[in-house]
């Protein structure tokens, strides 16, 4: 398991290559990359600042990955999340899940993102022409996380 919170950008290809470690037991890799958009709630977004809770954020992410590994038959999972100043087009988050088969890898990857969105302490503040504003939590994100409250078939 690997969890990183960092200011620096990440190289998807290099991260995946390092994470699979030439393990011939891995038959599937599912990944998700979250990006900064240039618009939100109808306003142009010039950039954003991502704040986190050092210590708790890493602990929460590690807990989410451990939960995913308990629910699905996967080999491992990697989460990288950036903090600090970001601009539209920048990468924010990377989730990589390795497994023997695609089903568990896809499901675990989506689960990790849904839980990260609702449980990991990160906060976005957007810069718009109307001034800076804290991004409001979305009900849709809570609903996405709720889907996983029922036991899943492995």
């Amino acid at each position: 398991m690997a969890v990183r919170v960092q200011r620096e950008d990440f190289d998807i290809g290099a991260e995946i290559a390092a994470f699979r470690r030439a393990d011939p037991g891995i038959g599937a890799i599912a990944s998700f990359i979250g990006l900064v958009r240039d618009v939100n709630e109808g306003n142009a977004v010039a950039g954003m600042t991502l704040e986190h809770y050092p210590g708790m954020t890493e602990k929460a992410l590690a807990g989410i990955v451990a939960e995913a590994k308990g629910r699905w038959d996967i080999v491992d999972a990697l989460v990288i999340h950036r903090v600090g100043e970001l601009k539209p087009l920048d990468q924010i988050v990377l989730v990589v899940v390795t497994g023997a088969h695609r089903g568990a890898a896809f499901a675990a990857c989506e689960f990790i993102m849904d839980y990260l969105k609702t449980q990991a302490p990160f906060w976005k503040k957007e810069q718009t022409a109307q001034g800076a504003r804290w991004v409001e939590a979305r009900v849709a994100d809570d609903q996405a996380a709720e889907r996983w409250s029922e036991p899943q078939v492995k």
Partner: protein
Amino acid sequence: MSIRILYFARLREDMGIAGEMFELPGEACDVNSLRARLVARGGASATALGQGKAVRVSVNQDLARDDTPVKAGDEVAFFPPVTGG
């Protein structure tokens, strides 16, 4: 007893501080009563943490509920619903 309190994001801005040490009578309480004591100070505390505000709480870096116990030396953080990813 002494509690280490941290504030993040909008709550840090509303409070005007990133954290503080807070003295409570007694040796134990819970999240709800700690929050009530902070709100009772009035001013920024009442505005930021008062009823109707969407506030999440952690105790020693684990998400907490209203009835989660708080004891001397704990680290309690108050923050808005999270918006990462």
